[in-house]
C-alpha cells in the first residue's frame, strides 16, 4: 500500500498569478503545507467551497489536485503540481 492520497485545491492568485492553496473559509495561502487536505470523497465539496464567494475571486481556476503527506510536508502527486509548489527545478538568470 502506498501513502494515502489526499485532495486539495490550488489556483493562481488573481493579482499576481502566484500559486496559492485553499485553506478554507475563503482563505488562500501560498504555502502548500497550510492547504486544507481532505479525503477523496470530500474533494468535490472542498472544490465547491473554494470556488464560492463574491467577485473578484482571489484565485483563478481553482482546481482539485492529489497530494500525499511526508511528515510535515505535503507532496503533490504529479510532477507538474510539484513544480508549481516548489518553483522551477533550475536556476535562472535572475537567480
Amino acid at each position, binding site marked *: 500500500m502506498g501513502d494515502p492520497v489526499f485532495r486539495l485545491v490550488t489556483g493562481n492568485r488573481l493579482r499576481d498569478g502566484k500559486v496559492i492553496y485553499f485553506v478554507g473559509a475563503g482563505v488562500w495561502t501560498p504555502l502548500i503545507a497550510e492547504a486544507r487536505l481532505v479525503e477523496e470523497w470530500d474533494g468535490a465539496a472542498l472544490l465547491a467551497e473554494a470556488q464560492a464567494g463574491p467577485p473578484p*475571486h482571489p484565485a483563478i481556476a481553482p482546481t482539485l489536485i492529489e497530494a500525499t503527506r511526508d511528515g510535515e510536508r505535503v507532496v503533490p502527486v504529479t510532477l507538474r503540481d510539484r*513544480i508549481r509548489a516548489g518553483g522551477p527545478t533550475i536556476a*535562472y*538568470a*535572475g*537567480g
Partner: protein
Amino acid sequence: MALYRYDEFDRKFLEERVAQYRDQVRRRLAGQLSEDEFRSLRLMNGLYLQLHAYMLRISIPYGTLSSAQLRGLAHVARRWDKGYGHFTTRQNIQYHWIRLEDTPDILAHLATVQLHGIQTSGNSFRNITTDPFAGAAADEIEDPRPYGEIVRQWSALHPEFSFLPRKFKIVLNAAPDDRAAVKIHDLGLNLRRNEKGELGFEVLVGGGLGRTPILAQTVRDFVPRRDVLAYITACLRVYNQYGRRDNLFKSRVKILVQSLGIEKYRQEVEAEYAAMGVEREELDLPDAVVAAMQAQFAAPSYPDASGDEAELNQALAAEPDFARWVKYNVKPHKAAGHAIVVVSLKQPGKVTGDCSASQMELLAELADRLSFGEIRITHDQNMVLPHVRKAALYDLWLQLGAAGLATPNIGLASDIICCPGMDYCSLATARSIPIAQALATNLAQREQEIGPLQIKISGCINACGHHHVGHIGILGLEKNGAESYQITVGGSDNAQAALGGIVGPAVAAHEVTATVDRLIDVYLRLRRDGEQFPDTYRRVGLAPFKEALVVAR
C-alpha cells in the same frame, strides 16, 4: 499601394491600446470582469497565465531591436520581473514572473520604445520573422526587412484576414541558404533573382510543426516583386475560404495544403490571383514604395575599415580562445572590415535563451559603441550585434566574456534550442531545460570534434523548440506519470529542410544524455569528409542509429 505613416499611427494606436487595457485590468481586479471575460483581452495584449505567474510575451518584429528598445526590455526585467527575460524561437521575449496589476505600467513603458505584445496570440498574423543577419550578411540578395515591414503593414489589422481559421506565421529570407527556417512557417517568402536579374519571391505555403509536422511547399517559384502582396493575398484568401474552422487540430493552412494537395491549392491560388482585376492594382508594390521603405532600413554609413584585417589577424594569432570564438561566433559581413557577431545565450549549464537585465544593458551599450545601436534576436535563441568593425572584435570579446556572453559555440552541440518546458509552461508534458543543460554540459567537451550539430528540445507536442527539424530532436512526453523523451534524428531547418525520424521507444530523463552520445558516435563513425549530420543521415538512413540503441538496450 497606400502605406500609412506607421510611426504616428502606431504610437497613437499603442497609447490607446494601453489606456483601454489599463481599464480592463482595473475592472478585472475590481471583480467587474470574470476570468472568462478577461482571458481573451489579456491574451490580445500578450499576457498568458503560466504555472507560477503571468507571462508577458512581447514581439520583436523581424528580430530587430534598437539599443533603446533593448534597454526598455532590460528595465521591464529589472523592475517588474525577476531580473531577466527569455528569448524564444519566435524571436520574441517572454517574461515569466509578471504580476497582473503591473501589466498596464509595463505596456505603457514598452510603448515608449514602440514595443508591445499585441497579436502575439489568437487567430491572427504573428510576429513576422526573418534572417537575423538581414541587412548585414555578405551573402544576402537584399535586406529582406523592408519587405517584412511592407508585409507587416499589409497584414496589421487587415480587415479581411482578422478572423483567420487559425494563427498565421510569415517568414522572409533573402540568403541563398535559409537562416530563417522558412519551411516550418505557414507562408514563406524567399527573395530571388530570375535569369533576367529581376527581383521577386519564391512563395511557399503550408509549413508548421506541432502535432502534425509538415514542411512548406513551393506554390510559385517566382512572383515578381511588385505582385507579391497581391499573390499572398490570393494565398490567404484560399485559406480563409477553405481552411477548417470546425476542428482546431485541422485548422492550420498546412492541413489545407496537405488535404487539397499542393497542385490543387496552387490552382485555387492562381485562379484567385487571375480574377483579382482592379484589386491587383491596389495591391501593386511600385518601386517607389519599396525604395521609401528601404530608406527606413538604410545601412549605416560604415567607416573605411579596410585596415582592420591586419589588427584582427594579430589578435587571432596571439589568443587561441579568441580565435576559437571568432571561428564559431563571427560571420561574414557585406561591408569591408566589418563582421556580424553572434552573442551566445547558451553557456553550458545556464538556461537557453535567458538573458539578465544587466546583460541586456551591456549589449545595448556595446551596440551603441560598436554596432550602430542595433541588436538582433535569432530564432536559435541567441543575440546578434550585426555591424562590428573587425578591429573592435577583440575588445568586444573581452567584454562579452566578462558577462558570460562569449561562449564559442554557435552552431555546435551545446548551442541547443530549448523551449521553457514544464519548469514554466502550463501546456508542457515534461521538462526541457534540465535536459538541455545536461546535454550541453556533457557535449561541450567534444563539440569541436563533432562540428556543426543542432539539438532541439520541446516540452510538449506543440514543438516550440522545433524538435522535428533538429539534427537530433527531443520531445518531452509524459508516460505513466513520469517524464520520457522521444528522440528523432536527421531533421534540419535550412534550405534542405527535413523532418527527423524516430529512433526508438522514448527514454527516461536520466537516459537522454547517454542516448544522444550513442547517436553522435554513430554519426562520427559513419560520416564522410565534409558531411554534416543531416547529410550522413540522408545517405545511411535511420537503421544504423536505431541499431545502436537496440544494442545498448
